[in-house]
């Protein structure tokens, strides 16, 4: 299939960067959660005895991260649904690149969503700095 056969051709070339957004959100969430827990437990944990403030902070990070990942995933899914380029989207055409990037980003968004939930699961069960 070539550009000429496609009904849809994106105006601008798609950027590879968009592929990295969902995993980037997971990475930032993981780092922020880890640092918050480490700093709180090192500085205030022994006196406070529990890690409730850490749990609240990580819950907030998680809501933000999951929302961002869902938004990126939705945009990517819409991108994937646009155009007629057929699987496996490996032609050197803008339409194929467009659908391929949308599909790959959607899958990465699902993976990042699950990974972020796994990170947050720790503070669902563990409520102290011990």
């Amino acid at each position: 299939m070539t550009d000429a056969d496609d009904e849809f051709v994106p105006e601008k070339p798609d950027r590879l960067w968009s592929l990295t957004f969902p995993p980037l959100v997971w990475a930032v969430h993981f780092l922020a959660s880890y640092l918050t827990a480490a700093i709180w437990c090192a500085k205030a944990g022994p006196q406070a005895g529990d890690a409730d403030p850490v749990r609240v902070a990580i819950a907030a990070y998680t809501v933000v991260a999951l929302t961002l990942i869902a938004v990126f995933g939705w945009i990517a899914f819409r991108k994937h649904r646009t155009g007629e380029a057929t699987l496996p989207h490996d032609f050197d055409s803008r339409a194929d690149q467009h659908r391929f990037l949308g599909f790959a980003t959607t899958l990465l968004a699902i993976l990042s969503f699950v990974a972020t939930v796994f990170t947050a699961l720790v503070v669902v069960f563990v409520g102290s700095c011990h």
Partner: protein
Amino acid sequence: MNSFPTQSALDPAGQGAESIAQLFYWMSGGAALIWCLVIGLAVYAIRRPQAHHYRLTRLLVIGGGAVVPTVVLTCLLSYGLSMMPELQRPAPEGSLTVHVHGVRWWWRVEYLGPSGQPIATANEIRLPVDQPIEFKLFSEDVIHSFWIPSLGGKVDMIPGRTTRLKLHPTRVGQFRGVCAEYCGGAHAQMNFDVVVSDAATFERWLADQSAPASEPETDLAVAGKAVFSQRGCGACHAIRGTAADGLVGPDLTHLGSRLRLGASLLDNTRQNLRRWITQTHQVKPKVEMPAFEALPEDELTALVAYLEQLK
């Protein structure tokens, strides 16, 4: 009491080890189930002569390849995490506390006496059954890891930091502890004995350990005490109640009452004690204690007589 000390996490004798063994069996069961499913599907895919149904194939790839692993992993992660709070919770206030220092390549052990005075021993830990015990863990040189597989999980001992661990033995017996983090030449021979007994036996043992060393009664042992002093053993080893107060090596106040020598390497017998003193580096290569190969026979006999009566 077991005749041979056990060192298996799958032969649990403590609450922590029981949870860990349970988790291992669930993981193994889950792995076996997934393995059977995958191999079964592979065999089905190879053997089925006609074309595979497209929708069914797609369902199997997405369901079996993505959804089922995610669900199984979520369940196993949740199950494992749900064990953490109890495993990590400190022993209640007032519980027996034992300080253990990792030193290349032996273990310094300290209990607290009734008036708060430390009671030092080495390479052997005795515990009462059915009680939570809090361990404070230290390292004097490099990173070690404290692990009694039959009683619970392992925790690293890090220089400059204090780490902790709670153990709750549930069965009387003799167990073996190990260093679970490579720490240098004699790492594999850095072990210790653990004896779990009823509370009364433990209290009697602790009272005996808190006493200073008994004075030698036989002429040979008296001569041995003099050898210990003249040969400079006290520079590295402490024997409470004598002038020997060295801290470099293990405290020997009640050496004769211990089960084994050289960090759980040799049974504590007269022959092995002689061997340990004269052929130290053959018995435990890299150990920091110098070998006393040239010690005259009469001095060696007297020294061994003195050390073995330190009950």
